């Protein structure tokens, strides 16, 4: 009975994983196909791979767009983590007047539908002369990411027993030292989780990116959408570019996977 349950569980997990991973597999396979193979019916799963799509991707605007995406996403993530952790720590450890209200206000920023603010943002950034500049998207993404970071990280800081910090205070560590040497290392799973989510969110974002950039600061999702419209659809190039674009997040996730598992399961610390 127990074995059966386990087998069923694993089977279900595999099925769900397959459902979610199949499109990914499809994209990866497509990226190695020629135009002809791509559109053949029934689809081919065994074929001689070609790297032409990747070469094409490298010879287009795509590398520059990825660079833009990474600059914007990494900057916004770093800023969000730094400001978010400080803010979250403040909310968690100090009594602040109107703390609940402030926290809800910060959370409500996250609920803001992007479509509602596209035009105002466009006007503001045009007035500031920041259209099609990296800084514009970095700032806008920070708006969403910081509120997310504050909320997730506050939960992690709340979990750290106050005594751990008091012990360090008695040992002669100043409040900033207590933050950096005790609280921050203990909140590492939270930092990793937050960073991954912020990164993904910033890399994926389309609507604001398409309205606030035109060429110089164009991000990869925007660029990829244009591949579709210019000269028919080059599915091979699109697939290759998508695979390349996924790599940064995949690599980062693998790097922090231990922290991530602990972070996602909100592991209690003692």
């Amino acid at each position, binding site marked *: 009975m127990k074995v059966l349950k386990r087998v069923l569980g694993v089977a279900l997990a595999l099925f769900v994983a397959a459902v979610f991973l199949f499109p990914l597999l499809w994209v990866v396979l497509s990226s190695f196909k020629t135009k002809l193979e791509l559109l053949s019916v029934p689809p081919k799963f065994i074929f001689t791979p070609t790297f032409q799509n990747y070469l094409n991707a490298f010879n287009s605007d795509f590398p520059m767009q990825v660079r833009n995406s990474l600059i914007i996403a990494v900057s916004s993530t770093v800023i969000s983590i730094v400001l978010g952790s400080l803010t979250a720590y403040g909310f968690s450890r100090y009594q602040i007047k109107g703390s609940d209200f402030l926290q809800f206000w910060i959370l409500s920023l996250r609920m803001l539908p992007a479509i509602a603010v596209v035009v105002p943002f466009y006007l503001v950034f045009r007035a500031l002369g920041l259209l099609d500049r990296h800084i514009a998207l970095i700032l806008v993404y920070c708006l969403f990411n910081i509120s997310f970071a504050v909320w997730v990280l506050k939960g992690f800081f709340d979990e750290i027993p106050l005594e751990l910090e008091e012990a360090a205070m008695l*040992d*002669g560590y100043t409040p900033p030292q207590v933050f950096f040497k005790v609280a921050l290392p203990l909140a590492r799973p939270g930092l990793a989780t937050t960073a991954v989510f912020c990164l993904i969110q910033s890399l994926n974002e389309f609507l604001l990116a398409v309205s606030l950039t035109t060429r110089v600061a164009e991000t990869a999702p925007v660029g990829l959408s244009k591949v579709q419209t210019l000269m028919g659809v080059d599915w091979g190039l699109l697939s290759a570019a998508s695979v390349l674009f996924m790599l940064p997040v995949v690599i980062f996730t693998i790097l922090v996977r231990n922290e991530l598992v602990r972070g996602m399961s909100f592991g209690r610390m003692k």
Partner: protein
Amino acid sequence: MARLELEQLDCWYGETHAVDHITLAVEDGELCVLLGPSGCGKTSTLRMIAGFVRPADGEIYLDGRPICHLYPGDRNIAMVFQNYALYPHKTVRQHFVFPLIPTRVSRREIEQRVNEMADFLEMHDLLDRYPGELSAGQQQRVAIGRALIRRPKLFLLDEPLNNLDERLRAETRANLRRMQQELQITTVYVTHDQVEAQALADKVVVMDMGHIRQVGSPQEVYHYPADMFVAGFIGMPPMNFIACRLEWEGTQPILRNSCFSLPLRGAMAERVDSLPQGRELILGVRPEHIRVTPQPGDDTIPAEVYVLEPQSNELVLDLKMGDLILKSRGDKQELGFRPEVGQRVGIRFLQRAVHLFDKETEKRV
């Protein structure tokens, strides 16, 4: 090393008056136990001494120097927390080194002190383990080591034995006492366990509702409790309280209630000397000061065995006297007979050990 003085210390948590203007002195090298039920203000007092809570009023002096305005780290105080507060990401060695870093002692000195501390706590083999790999007792030794390695003037302990099982608790208690006496370090120890207080303390401070009820040696608070709270809190099972009236037959004072009349003699008689006829008093008798005999006589009070609670070598008896239940406690051998539930017995109070309290003020008479 250091003398600690609390002067009119006062603390509020919102609407709760946690500590109400307490004044206390702890002498150099003394182990002072703050004893009381939860919510009595003992932990708040400790946290004010450590500097985590700012007192609403009053001042704390360490070696005559006011320290209330100082940051916890500048007070030269160390503390062992109830849950030990160990860092899950640091090894035992790193725990010992951590408090030494802000003191800017040399690397060689750090090495030497860590070794000394490992010797003292017998932890050499465990220096490279993480807290998660240690037993509760070992974790506690790490917490103590981390606190003492800086050689603080004052050592604070917040219910340090709470998370240990019974056997380890007795062992650790003895160890703590040995360490404290070896190092001659002024110590404030918070607990709600009167057995711990009795075993460890040079000075016991009994607290209740933010007030200090009594300060004294463990013997003093046991033999001469200042009021009914202290009397009831110290000793296990707790003291029996019996409401009585004082009556005078000529020059002989007699305590009366519906079950007995007890002529007072000697020192007890002197204590009630100035009290008027009909004064309401509370007689306090510890379970260990009740003698039970199987033959009720003229000089005993009739009672009935209600519940038997055998302990290892002692017997706790619940005795029904009128509508009162008294507890007695005594050595099984000394009792001289095997009581049975429902048996009629005679009881006698050891007069040199009974206590009298005023019913109104609950203070000792």
